[in-house]
């Protein structure tokens, strides 16, 4: 496997988020990580992308220790869209997307033809090409998220980690972004995304990782692992699993609160 973490202990100062965590991303997969808030999804992603130094354990990329590879070299193979980023004052969309080209640039090669093409197609793919000259801080949350995604795409890495890429989007834009991810996956990239919507996760993931309190509770093909028991164990939520009429993947239908319904009807 190209990207994997072994025996990871992840912590912020004294606060240990995960210990003895083994996580492997199947090559060419569209892996989706789900789990309740604060269970360590972002932390795991950050460790895989060398944002966070594990207190113990190792992360390997293409067989080498990720810390032993030059930083720019890693950035040409592995991209990350963080959960939150800061928009610099007054930056234009094209400028921000162009910053994704940094690992491909050198002192004497600051803007090649290839940079130009990559930025152009990243903006096309995310539908922000029309906004190229607008200031990012004037955009809506959804447009902004797509600009950040475009920046990550412009980096042209074969592995791409996305932390909650759909969070600020309305349902139509969520599906648009996920379809885009599915396209990227079909073109041969390895994708890892943290999502909140279980049904979307089941629909798009080829490999699902379910986390709770810093541990991986289940992983594999969503159709095989997602059960009512799993959802109850992980989210403390009672539900029924039916088949998604559109995609044939599992569809989680939460149970109706009996008392609430009784009050409503009575």
């Amino acid at each position: 496997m190209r990207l994997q973490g072994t025996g990871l202990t992840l912590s912020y100062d004294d606060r240990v988020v995960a210990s003895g965590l083994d996580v492997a991303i199947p090559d060419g997969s569209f892996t989706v990580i789900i789990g309740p808030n604060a269970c360590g999804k972002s932390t795991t992603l950050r460790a895989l992308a060398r944002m966070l130094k594990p207190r113990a354990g190792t992360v390997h990329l293409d067989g080498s220790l990720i810390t032993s590879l030059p930083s720019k070299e890693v950035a040409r193979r592995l991209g990350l869209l963080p959960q939150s980023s800061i928009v610099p004052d007054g930056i234009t969309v094209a400028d921000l997307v162009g910053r994704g080209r940094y690992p491909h640039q050198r002192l004497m090669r600051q803007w090649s033809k290839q940079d130009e093409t990559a930025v152009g197609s990243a903006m096309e793919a995310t539908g922000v090409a029309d906004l190229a000259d607008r200031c990012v801080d004037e955009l809506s949350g959804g447009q902004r998220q797509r600009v950040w995604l475009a920046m990550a795409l412009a980096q042209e890495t074969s592995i791409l980690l996305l932390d909650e890429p759909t969070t600020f989007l309305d349902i139509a834009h969520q599906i648009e972004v996920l379809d885009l991810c599915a396209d990227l996956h079909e073109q041969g990239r390895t994708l890892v995304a943290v999502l909140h919507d279980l049904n979307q996760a089941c629909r798009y993931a080829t490999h699902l990782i379910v986390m709770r309190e810093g541990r991986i509770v289940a992983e594999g093909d969503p159709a095989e692992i997602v059960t009512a028991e799993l959802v109850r164990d992980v989210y403390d939520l009672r539900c029924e699993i039916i088949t998604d009429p559109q995609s044939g993947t599992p569809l989680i239908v939460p149970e109706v609160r009996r008392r609430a319904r009784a009050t409503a009807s009575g």
Partner: protein
Amino acid sequence: MTVLRLASWSLRLSPRGLAVCLLLVAAGVAVSLVALSTGEFTVPVPDIVGSLFGRGTPAAELIVWKLRAPRVVTGLLVGAAFGLSGAIFQSITRNPLGSPDFIGFTAGAATGGIVAVVLGGSSWQIAGGSLLGCVACALLVYALSFRNGVQAHRLILVGIGVSALLTSADWYLLTRANINDAATAGAWLTGSLGGRGWEHALPVACALALLLPVCALVSRPLRMMEMGDDSAKAVGIRVEPVRAAAVTVGVLLCGVATAATGPVVFVAMAAPQLARRLTRSPGVTMLASALMGAVLLVTADLAAQRLLAPVQLPVGIMTAAIGGTYLVYMLRKERR
């Protein structure tokens, strides 16, 4: 952005940024010439240029090269150093109030200098004292605001507190000094270019020559880091070494500049902000900030010498007056 290409080489330039820098250079030259030629005795500009090539009158040589030029050159260099230092810290803290005059580094340098004055130090010892004070204060502020990493707003608040403490320490030290030392120290505390010779310009020039290349190297990574550490790391920037290098350069520039003139406030705060607004650059602009700092300081010094002539104001009072106005204007604008 314009791209210049030659074979496989390519350079990326902002035409507007370039134009602003050229304008600032022109403004700097113009103000410097005025400062060199006017005063109690007027030296015509051609004589100044003549003496530059060793063909001036002895009077022009004396007035221009011994008296006025060191003051102007020191002003330009110190202004540039403050501008750069401000640009670095504002970029790291992502906040205009993150400049060294607010987060206590300038105050540390000042106290270090005063201690040296009170101990009867020579001008080199005073310079050393203020450099030491700046570094010590930077370490102190950093340590006090460190909790699970350094957050910008905590750094600024701690810095303001430490500044206030140091200022009261300064005045206490002044009361303990003998009357001559107290007068020297008091004048130095407001930040002044009066009576500066080549020996004041030289250390700043050396520091700039050494540290400017580092500034150039870290400027692009710093701009990326304004998007957050994770975003910067994602594109392959080694955030910690870049930040350590930038902080070191910023502290040294602030210390060396304060050593030469005393704490001239607000230049480090205002220069990078003005530079950014003029160039419309997203993020820190090192070169424009340095040039803007230089122009601001010599202009303020010229105004301080001429406005109330023959009364000579220390330049620090002038920059405080202009800078304070600018700060209020900026905060009012930010509100909207």
